[in-house]
């Protein structure tokens, strides 16, 4: 099930909240586990067993690692290794087996049949969570969970299950065993959820429609302006879709008493690639930093080692986004740029006018999305050729003007919503009108806006034409 659906909003969520808040305290974890399993089984009736299996494996490994950490380190090492192998094997089997088969066939001219298994939704998210659990126990950062049902709850917790954020066990360990209903937290959750829903349904789906129209046409018929508009539309679509999902997840987490980490922090206002990746999909970046980049030695062993480590980490980061070469290339592209920035470009950039820094980042991101969005590298390259004017396509045409005319307002809204402008504005208004009745009016107004957002989002869902789920490959 996805959050941005009528079934979730008007059947699953009210029922889940009702069950959860009407049951006695000692039953809450069981109810939430049952509800989460139901949520996953709704879209993946068979793969639910895979997830339960995965949780069971990690439960056992966690206990073994913890027991032997001090007394028999070699056994703890083996248990950690075994945990990693099982997790990575499951992920690889479902996500990368066909990719491997395809490449082996291509390389050696063999004709091995691909497995054609559908990818279990969210598998990349929950395997990364369970791996962090085993590693953190090994590192002595957390105690293992004694209650298998509580660990199962951590793995299956529905708000963050299918599209992140990647929540580490240590982040919510306390909340898993002990949490209280707090009115303010619940209200904050409602705010997060509605804003996330609006981002996904109103902005991402609408602007995504523009990209859908443009990419569906013959490239030779498009003007240069149109292809730029197309990739700009996709940039907004993926940002508002992904960060909208994260916001909804954070909001739902709060409604059930959990505090998940922030996953997006206005990435498009960054001034360098390095900064961008500190603001984009934060939980994934920090996962790779803490569990891959630092263990490899990070940037402490000289330039060449650093570059090697960057390429490894970014190659895998790319591959994490989908089993296809274009994702690997997309990851390496960022690894390369971050390397160059480390070598001195960053210092150079900082001396320039902020305008150039922003322009530099945005252009890099846009070309990056071209690599990301086309599976077929030839198509990606052909698209870039039109973008840079290396073809005979027109500079602009009637269609491009029409797209600008009909999507201009939406683009302006998307630009504003990509920046913290509204947040700052609200703070400013609060400070400018310190009188209590004025503050009350501002607060009431913001509640009114949220309700309107919720009603309009519902209207868009009822007549939903274009409502894709973008992470089926993650």
């Amino acid at each position, binding site marked *: 099930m996805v959050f941005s659906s009528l079934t979730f909003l*008007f059947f699953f969520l009210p029922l889940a909240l009702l069950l959860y808040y009407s049951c006695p305290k000692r039953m809450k974890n069981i109810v939430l586990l049952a509800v989460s399993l139901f949520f996953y089984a709704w879209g993946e009736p068979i793969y639910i067993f895979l997830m339960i299996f995965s949780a069971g494996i990690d439960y056992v490994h966690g206990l073994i690692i913890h027991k032997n950490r001090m007394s028999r380190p070699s056994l703890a090492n083996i248990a950690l290794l075994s945990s990693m192998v099982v997790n990575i094997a499951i992920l690889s089997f479902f996500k990368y087996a066909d990719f491997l088969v395809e490449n082996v066939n291509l390389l050696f001219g063999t004709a091995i049949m691909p497995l054609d298994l559908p990818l279990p939704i969210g598998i990349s998210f929950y395997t990364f969570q369970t791996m962090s659990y085993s590693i953190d126990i090994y590192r002595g950062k957390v105690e293992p969970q004694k209650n298998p049902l509580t660990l199962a709850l951590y793995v299956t917790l529905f708000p963050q299950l299918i599209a992140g954020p990647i929540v580490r066990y240590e982040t919510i360990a306390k909340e898993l065993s002990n949490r209280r209903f707090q009115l303010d937290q619940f209200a904050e959750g*409602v705010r997060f959820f509605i804003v996330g829903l609006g981002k996904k349904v109103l902005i991402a789906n609408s602007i995504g429609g523009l990209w859908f129209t443009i990419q569906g046409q013959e490239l030779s018929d498009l003007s240069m302006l149109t292809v730029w508009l197309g990739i700009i539309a996709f940039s907004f679509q993926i940002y508002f879709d992904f960060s909208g999902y994260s916001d909804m997840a954070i909001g739902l987490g709060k409604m059930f008493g959990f505090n998940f980490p922030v996953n997006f922090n206005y990435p498009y206002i960054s001034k360098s690639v390095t900064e961008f990746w500190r603001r984009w999909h934060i939980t994934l970046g920090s996962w790779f930093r803490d569990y891959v980049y630092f263990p490899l030695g990070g940037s402490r062993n000289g330039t060449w080692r650093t570059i090697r480590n960057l390429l490894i980490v970014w190659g895998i980061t790319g591959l994490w986004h989908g089993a296809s070469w274009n994702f690997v290339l997309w990851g390496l592209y960022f690894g390369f740029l971050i390397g160059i920035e480390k070598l001195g470009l960053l210092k150079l950039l900082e001396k320039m006018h902020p305008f150039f820094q922003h322009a530099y980042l945005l252009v890099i991101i846009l070309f990056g999305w071209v690599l990301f969005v086309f599976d077929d590298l030839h198509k990606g390259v052909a698209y870039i050729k039109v973008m840079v004017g290396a073809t005979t396509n027109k500079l602009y045409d009637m269609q491009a003007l029409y797209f600008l005319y009909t999507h201009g307002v939406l683009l302006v809204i998307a630009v504003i919503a990509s920046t913290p402008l509204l947040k700052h504005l609200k703070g400013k208004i609060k400070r400018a009108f310190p009188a209590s009745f004025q503050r009350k009016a501002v607060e009431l107004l913001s509640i009114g806006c949220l309700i309107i957002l919720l009603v309009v989002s519902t209207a868009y869902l009822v*007549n939903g034409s274009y409502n894709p789920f973008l992470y089926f490959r993650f």
Partner: protein
Amino acid sequence: MSFMKVMNRILIGLFAVFIGGISILHPLTKDIYFSESENRVLAQMPKFTWKQLASGNFTKEFESYVSDQFIKKGFWTGTKSVVEKAVGKRENNGVYFGKDGYLFERFEKPGEQLNSNVDYMNRFSGKIKGANTFLMLVPTSIEMYPEKLPRFAYTESEKYWMDVIQQLLNPSTTWLNAYNPLWEAKDEPIYFRTDHHWTTHGAFIAYQNAANAMGFQAFMKEDFTIETVSKNFFGTYDAKANDFTVKADKIEMYVPKFDVSYRVEFNDDTQVMDSLYAHDFLQKRDQYSFFLNGNHGKVVINSSVKNGRKLLVVKDSYAHALVPFLANHYEEIHMIDLRYYHEKLDNYIEKETISDVLFLYNIATFSEDPNLIWLNQ
């Protein structure tokens, strides 16, 4: 209690009432079987079986059930369309919101199918002997009213592609020009504003112009009494556009003042009517089916005209508004819709001693219909 606590309570209360209220109202509202406004059967509550659940079909069907039967659908549809217009949207599902209440479907650049279709027709007309062949391609409304389109709205030129077809056409087939007479009459209501068809009046103009080439003397407007049979027609463009500001179209019927009668057979006598019009459809969404009872594979019209002339019309639904005029000049008219009729037509022409063959399509259907292949089998 602090002020923020009160505010938070209000917010939580409103949220709960909204999602909870709808979830309670949904099962209490009676499900609808057929939606007149969308012209389709709505999804019903799926039957639960473990097998359906394991395959994932149950949950999929349940989701379509929820969205199809959602309460107050009209309200939500209206809300969405108002918001979309406000942020600048000027089309929905490829249908533009034009000026003066017109809706227009974009004419997309034709692909290979267009060339194939001309080729199928040429080969077919080369095969049949002893019958005259005619082609009438009718432009759609978007071609006639570029000034009513939204700013910068793009569409492929129909004129251009009609010229291409005329060039490719086998010379033995007579080209019946509908474009110029319709263009000259564009200030009159020749197209529906909310539907993809032309009006009776538009068809009448094309009929008068075709008379000479087809070899008969057309009747004049004065020979008919014009009756308005519907004032509440919302057509297919309306269904696609969901634009709440458009007004209903009206449908006219040209009743001959002269003496004539018809017998209309559908699909080899499975249904017979003594009228060219099916009034029942005027009570439904699909009111254009008033003309000749909608789409059928084969329709044969026997008229009281006794001149021995027999016409075969290979067509799309644009023919339904025009054929009633032709029926006053032919003893028999055989209408074939290749989407539903797949038998050998050259044998049919011989067997029924057809004297004239008319291909009648609007340019949009003709450029993408994959069924003309049935002409050559």
